[in-house]
């Protein structure tokens, strides 16, 4: 129990998101810190991540 508390990810501008959502972002190759959050207190939801990934990979309209 020494100097914990300050976790490795206590870094500035860390997106607010649950562990499962973070993992989803990594799975989809999305930098979660770029995803705008629509949840409470600006939380990034899994839908936000999916939408972001879809926008990114959506083929440009022909």
């Amino acid at each position, binding site marked *: *129990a*020494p*100097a*914990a*508390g*300050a*976790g*490795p*990810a*206590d870094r*500035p501008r*860390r997106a*607010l*998101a*649950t*562990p499962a959502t*973070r*993992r989803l972002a*990594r*799975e989809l*190759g999305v930098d979660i810190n770029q995803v705008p959050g629509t*949840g*409470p*207190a*600006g*939380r990034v939801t899994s839908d936000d991540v999916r939408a972001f990934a879809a926008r990114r990979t959506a083929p440009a309209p022909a």
Partner: protein
Amino acid sequence: MGSIKTGTDVVVIGAGPGGYVAAQRASQLGLDVTLIEREELGGTCLNHGCIPSKALISVGDLLYKVNNAAERGLVVKGSVEVDFAKTQEWKETKVIKRLTSGVASLMKAGQVEVVKGTARFTDPHSLEVELNDGGTAAYTFKHAIIATGSTAVNPSFFPLDGENVVDARGALAFREIPPRFVVVGGGYIGVELGIAYAKLGSKVTIVEATGQLLPGTDPDLVNVLMRRLRRLGVTVMLNARASGGLQNGKVKVQDGEGKVHEIEADKVLVSVGRVPYTEGLHLDKAGVRVDEKGFIPVDEQMRTNVPHIYAIGDVCSPVMLAHKASAQGRVAAEAIAGRPSAADWQTVPAVIFTDPEIAYVGLTEAQAREKGYDPVVSRYNFAAVGRALTMGESDGMVKLVGDRQSGLLLGAQMVGPEVSELIGEIALAIEMGAQMEDVALTPHYHPTLSEGILEAALSWMHSIEKAGRK
């Protein structure tokens, strides 16, 4: 011998909570794993750290509780004696041995090859093991995970003698309860063991160089502990320096004013820190870099500067905690298996098994302010928590830190009964990005200690409501 090289997907060096968990996870993911350990499976944690310390603490606790239950109508006619040989035997066979054989079964089930010996790198893709049974063996590997842990500092100002001046490992293995026990270093290891032996019957003195026990811990929490230490008869010397070892049964301690005291002692525990352990590993042969303090720097996937070599646990950062090692072990194994895992948790909870227990996670008020939040703190005392009163354990409090604007729960600092378990709820809340309201509106069973959290969250909400949030 030593010339036949066995190939393996993953070699894990060190079988502590970092290494054995990494080995297990890698094997679950279909990798071929070799785990090298020169002592017992389970590492420091299971054999000489977390587990044996908590075993002694819980025995001391029970003894102390029953000897202080007269008010509750439990009267000791005669006495409750400690048969310490029995305690130690129980600790070894019914606690440690069960867990380490559990680890052995896990390794077997996962078809992890366990090699007993000391590993050293020979080049970036191979290593050699000096086998405990004699001889050497050589391995080539696609990936390596370094999990060699840490070791107690042996300070020149108070050198260990392995007999009466010992590190925590030695103190956990005492054959008898030392009548007079001096602890040099008031960090969590020293304080936990100091209290355990005090409850078991030792006259204990804790010598701490700084102005506070448990440096780095919220002073509000430590104050509650200090009151209990007084009741336990533990002497605490702050701003004090012990030096020169145990001489004629005495320890020299210089206090803050420069006055020198001689404290009688049968045994001395020196616990002044732990350092990463990579001795004899020949990291240079693998090309793995260490920093100026000896830690192996890693990225979010636990990769060292050599991309196919990972490091986890105590060896890679000064947050030396078993669960951090295990979580990192899972990340490293998954990364090797090609998964997008990362050590990106927000918080690592801290617990100290003192009496009362201390636990904290996330940000303190000061840390929150530094990070640009507008922190509001609420507290709730266990003296007003029904369950605490029914247990006869009403010292302590819950402090919750929340951000005024967003309502986010940023951190908790607690001291009191079972806060080691209560912290789990808050750690999850923080990882989930919970707002204070989420905690305040979640039903908490009555009567439980976790109502302390509920009440602190409710009072946080109500204070914001009074002050006006927007």
